[in-house]
Structure formats: C-alpha cells, structure tokens
C-alpha cells in the first residue's frame, strides 16, 4: 500500500514537473503575449495541482494535507487573477494578439517592443 502510494505520488509530481517544463517551453516558443500568458498560467495551475496532489499522497495524512489544500486554494485564486491582470495590462499598453482576426486587421507589427518603448517615451 505504502509502496503504491509512493509510486503514484512520485508519478504525479513528475507529471506536474513535466507540465511546468512544457509551459516554460510554451512561454519561449509561442508567438505573442497572450498565448504566452496562456501557456504559463495554465501549466502553472495544472502543474502545481498535480504536484500538490503527489505530495499529499507521499506525506502522512493530517495537518500537512490540510496545508497543501490551502496552498492549492491559494494558487487557484491567485494564478488566474495574475494571468488576467497581466493580459489586461498588456492590452492596456497597446499589445494586440498576433493571431486570429486581429492579425488580419494588421495592427501593430512590432508588438514585442511596445512596453519598453512606451516606458522610454514617458521617461
């Protein structure tokens, strides 16, 4: 029983870690801000959930499980909110998605450099 729990828990943690690595790759490879945010936030919550689950299985049941639960709740609360805020801020500072209708509309080619140049102008 304990062995099985160990393997399941370990597997979950590894899976969570893999998910996070995939998310990181997405952040590097995706074309624009919004898809990158999407990659980061989704894998973040997903990976964290898997890992916390794995940890819960590995540790003794009790206070630690409760703590892990709280951590999970916290992540579920903050991570999407942060992603939302980030996307919001990106939109507010003039970034437009590169795919879908927006690309056809052809606004703003060099979106990546926008925040910095904006900062410079203000400075």
């Amino acid at each position, binding site marked *: 029983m304990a062995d099985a729990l160990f393997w399941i828990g370990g597997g979950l943690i590894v899976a969570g870690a893999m998910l996070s690595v995939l998310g990181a790759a997405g952040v590097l490879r995706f074309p624009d801000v919004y898809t990158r945010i999407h990659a980061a936030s989704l894998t973040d919550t997903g990976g964290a959930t898997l890992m916390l689950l794995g940890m819960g299985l590995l540790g003794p049941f009790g206070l630690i499980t409760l703590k892990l639960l709280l951590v999970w709740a916290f992540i579920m*609360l903050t991570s999407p*909110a942060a992603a939302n805020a980030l996307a*919001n*801020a990106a939109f*507010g500072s003039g970034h437009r998605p590169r795919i879908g209708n927006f690309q056809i509309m052809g606004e703003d080619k060099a979106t990546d450099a926008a925040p*910095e140049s904006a*900062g*410079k102008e203000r*400075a």
Partner: protein
Amino acid sequence: MTAPVLEASFALNVALLLMLVVLAAAVVWTRSLLAAILLMSVYSLVSATWLMVMDAPDVAFTEAVVGAGISTIVALGAILLTRGEAVRVSWKRQVVPGLLAGLVGGLLIYAMSGLPDFGDPASPANSHVGRAYLETAKRDIGAPNVVTAVLGSYRGFDTLGETVVILAACIGVALMLGFGPRATLAPPAGAPGDHHVVLRVTAKMLVPLIILFALYVQFHGDLGAGGGFQAGVIAAVAIILHALVFGLRETTAAIPPQAARAVAALGVVVYAGVGIVCIVNGGGFLDYDHLLTPQIEAMIPAGLLGDPDKPHHWGQYFGILAIELGVLMTVSATMITIFYGFAGRTIDAIAAELRR
C-alpha cells in the same frame, strides 16, 4: 569518522547551486535592468529552495519573502523611476573590474582550502557555540525552534541592531523620497469599473488572508520557521497589494505615511523598552529572566500553554513574544514606508522636480 553523505540531498545541493551560478551569469550578461531584477527574483527563489536543503527553513522563508518579494518590488519601483536599460560598457573598462574580482576570488579560493569539509559535524563551527545552543536552548529558553531562541534571546542584541538597521532604512528612504512631490498611484487603468474587477475581487479576498497568514507566522515562530521579520514583510506585502490594486490614495487614507513612520519607530521603542524593563527589574539589558517581577510571574496560570507539569520560562516566553512584536511593527511599517516612497514618485513628479 565517516560522515554519512546523503547522496540525494547532496545532488540537490549541487543542482541548485549550479542553477544559481547560471542565474548569476545571466545577471552579469543582461543589459536589461528589468530582466536583471526578475532574474534576481528567481535567484532568490532558487536560493530559498537551496536553503531548505541546507536545513535552514527560517532563512529560506526570509530569503523568499525578502529576495523574491520586497526587493523585487522596490527594484521595480526604482527602474520605473529611472530607466530600463544599462549603457553598454566597453570591454576595456571591464578589464580592471575583472582583475579585481579575480583577485578577490583567487584569495577566496586560496582561503577555502583552510575551511573544513562541507557537512563536517566536527568542524569548529559546528562543534563549539553552535552546538552549545542546541544543547542549552530548551533548558534556557524553552522554545523548540533553536533559531528563534538564539535570535530572540541569546543574540537578541543582534536582532535589536537588525531592527534598528531596518528603522535606519526607513528613515533613509523617507529622507530621500518621502517629502518630494507626492503623486497618487491611480488604479492600473483609469476608467472606472474597467476590466480590473477580477483583480479587485481577488485582492479583496487575499489581503485579509495574507494578514492572517502573517499573524500565523508571527506567533508560530516559537515552534517552527517564522518570526517577526518574516511576518512583518508578509503583512507589508498585503498592504502593498492593496495599494497596487486600489491605488495609493486609498491605502494612504487607511495607513497614512506618518503613521507608518511612527509605527516603525515605536517598534524599536518596544524592543528596546523590553530591554530597559529588564534593567529596571534588576537584570541586564534584554535579560528576559528578569522581565517579569515575581509577583507578575506568580499570577500566570501554570497551564497557560498546555502542559502544566513542565517548568516554563515565562520571562523568556513573553520577552521573545514582545520583541518579535517590536520587530513586526518596525519591519512592516518600514516596508510600507519604502513602498510609499517609491510609489509616491512618478515620472511626472520627476519632471516637476527637474523644472523646479
């Protein structure tokens, strides 16, 4: 003597340290200050993890809240007010600094050969005073967390100094930034009822939670990792979050800058006051065994903290409690003051200053 090297933990140690080296190299490399600051934030997080491997949960906790938290916020505030990129430095001007750093490094490498092996339990560092604390803390202080015992009591004077350093930073930042043109940090996007409603709702839920957590960290310091310093930073973060989401005007209405400065000073007064009370009651400075007069001690019910049979060091207990409170006050108020200082200056304010 054969030291049982725990292979797994050592491998983790090596891996994390290598990550730190890579991060440091990236910080050296990059010219973007934003990138450097974020890399430093990651650096802190990684080093906090490493500190956990090194059995230093208190330090890890602190490194996480300070390095990844408050330092990043302050540094971001600073580049917002200055500029985002460093000028390229020609290689010629890097030769001398490189040589200097190399010189120091060479001296250090030479010196390292005289240091005991990593993890050696018999090294002087681990066998003299450090070990004495482990042996006597329970008896002298009564707190299970030896780090807290040393921090609060054995080396409480250091901690007083540390608190004063924080106060000094508060005074320094207030002197530098606190009296200039004061701007109101408006809610992130100007329009009322805008897209930020998610953020606001979340923040409203989070702020009390964070403060609750700070209190937990504060009072849990006796038993586990944590204490006044970490709690202070966490509490400050709650306020800073409030300011970021709801605007500086809202926050300063709740906590005026003058009040924050006053609390920072009062924290040190509380800490030093404990020391003075000890003197008045016939002991030395910060000698908590004399904090309570016998009459007061007699009034404490024996079973106040659980097990009635165990002898309890009430003086030490309340002393550490009180000084941690002082630390909490000073640290949280200082962090808030620092944030106010940086946030209170905007680019427009700078322009106004330049025109003056």
